[in-house]
């Protein structure tokens, strides 16, 4: 137990000390990747542990980012109407923008709005026992709805350009390297806290209920648990994590647009978790960092083949590494330890019930 905890501590401390050994540019990249790692944690919770595959987490990420971006935009507009509204013909700040001039409200909203939206959608679909691929496809439709809306409502959202060109956050200049380092460290801390939260949840009895829901949702009902409330809870928790990541993302990258909440980014989020290991929280973090590093690397070296590589990665992971990198290490280690008992396949719990 202690050794493992020590390992995690070392990992997070190594990340935390990033500014000491990473250059400014690489630190910025890493900060972005760690935001993605927070999203990945959330996806791991719902997908790896609960069996809900959401192809719509870009929406929650985006909404969280927009909430914070609205505050940043207002702050950098110095009390004037944001530039894009001016040339979109809006004469006064829309009512729903007004509270976002308060940073506390904006930051709280970046957590709560995604969580509430997810809870609503989750409650309806899970209560109606829509699950598996049907839920995945519906979550994709939700992405289409939101992206179309955000693009079409240009006078409110900045349209395809999104919100960008921020100057300060709570009075600190976002361009300053020191502020960027502070934001990076904040990201590491929040990632660490999210990880701890997620690990505690999955190690609790509730976490075992979630795994049970994944393996046999109907069976869980016959133990007296209502899977709907568990699923709604974990789904909105994961949406809140995505929203939180969006906030950190927009602070560090200084930009959010509908393109970042689209279908492709949403599916890529799932890929991070698949590559790292869908049943492993630390795997999700590693997956997000590794896939995005690889993306940076490949798209710089061989821009044309990045999408082929990405496609192959999907296929390889699904076909040969269903439990991702961490899973592969696990079984390799297992083999090394000469564990040979493998007989008997695990029946799905729901064999009869469903």
């Amino acid at each position, binding site marked *: 137990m202690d050794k493992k905890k020590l390992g995690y501590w070392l990992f997070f401390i190594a990340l935390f000390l990033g500014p000491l050994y990473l250059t400014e540019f690489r630190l910025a990249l890493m900060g972005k990747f760690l935001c993605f790692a927070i999203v990945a944690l959330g996806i791991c919770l719902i997908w790896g542990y609960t069996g809900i595959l959401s192809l719509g987490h870009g929406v929650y990420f985006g909404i969280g980012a927009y909430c914070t971006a609205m505050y940043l935009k207002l702050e950098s507009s110095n009390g004037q109407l944001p530039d894009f509204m001016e040339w979109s013909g809006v004469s006064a700040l829309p009512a729903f923008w007004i509270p976002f001039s308060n940073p506390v409200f904006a930051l709280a909203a970046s957590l709560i709005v995604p969580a509430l939206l997810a809870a609503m959608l989750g409650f309806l679909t899970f209560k109606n026992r829509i699950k598996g691929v049907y839920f995945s496809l519906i979550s994709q439709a939700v992405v289409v709805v939101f992206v179309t809306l955000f693009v079409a409502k240009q006078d409110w959202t900045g349209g395809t350009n999104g919100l960008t060109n921020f100057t300060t956050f709570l009075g600190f200049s976002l361009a300053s390297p020191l502020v960027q380092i502070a934001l990076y460290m904040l990201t590491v801390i929040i990632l660490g806290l999210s990880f701890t939260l997620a690990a505690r*949840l999955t190690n*609790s*009895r*509730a976490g*075992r*209920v979630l*795994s*049970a829901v*994944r*393996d*046999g949702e*109907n*069976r*869980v*009902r*016959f*133990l*007296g*648990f*209502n*899977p709907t*409330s*568990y699923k709604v*809870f974990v789904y909105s928790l994961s949406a809140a994590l995505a929203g939180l990541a969006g906030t950190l993302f927009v602070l560090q990258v200084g930009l959010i647009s509908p393109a970042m909440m689209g279908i492709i980014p949403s599916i890529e989020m799932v890929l991070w978790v698949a590559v790292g290991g869908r049943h492993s929280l630390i795997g999700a973090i590693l997956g997000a960092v590794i896939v995005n590093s690889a993306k940076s690397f490949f798209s710089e070296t061989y821009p044309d083949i990045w999408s082929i590589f990405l496609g192959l990665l999907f296929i390889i992971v699904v076909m040969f590494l269903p439990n991702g990198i961490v899973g592969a290490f696990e079984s390799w280690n297992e083999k090394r330890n000469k564990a040979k008992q493998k*007989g*008997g*396949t*695990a*029946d*799905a*719990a*729901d*064999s*009869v*019930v469903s």
Partner: protein
Amino acid sequence: MQPILSCRDVRVSFNGFQALQGVDLEVKPQEVRFLIGPNGAGKTTLLDVICGKTKASDGDVLYRQVENIRKLQEHEIVRLGITRKFQAPSIFANLTVWENLELSLKQERGLWSVMRAKMTGEDKEKMEAMLSRIGLMDQRHQLAGMLAHGQKQWLEIGMQLMQDPEILLLDEPIAGMSGTERHKTGELIHEISTACSVLIVEHDMEFVRNFSKQVTVMHEGKVLCEGTMSEIQQNEQVAEVYLGRRESAC
């Protein structure tokens, strides 16, 4: 004695097919009741209706004569004390035996309470007792999916018993078990019935003969007759129903 469970004129139809055509059935406290009948008679469907998996299109299912559970959701019915074991073992393959039992503890099953739940010494004793009762003490840290078929069946029965049910619904509990295992299961059921009522669907006549007191025969979505096994064996209607379909009886 007041019946603990009464089904009144329960009807179920699947896309026009009448699976249950008005079933009446009463189960008394601490009674072991066997449901027999040829395939397609509606035995499993009746269990499905009682546990909430299938919704009856008509009729009432009364618990303790007052509460109509026909429209309740599965987990609400379970919380009342009616648990169900399915025909094929349905345990959580990726959890250990111990964890399977842990989830089956009689407990507050709300999200908030479960998140804060801690294993008490009492819980632990209860689970260990159950482990030795179902003979899985040595396998308790194994993944449940790795158990042998009979062990899975027992684990599932154990999971039902952990919930201290008032009524236990069993669907062919001994299917796929060896002779000694069957006997052991029979004993177990007998033992259980001191605490709760048991409603069992079973095809194995030998087993029914050995362990039944009351038997209900179903045929084509209706109750054909009720009585002790020897009474049933005398019944001409039953013979007729079974003679044509001998193979399904054994």
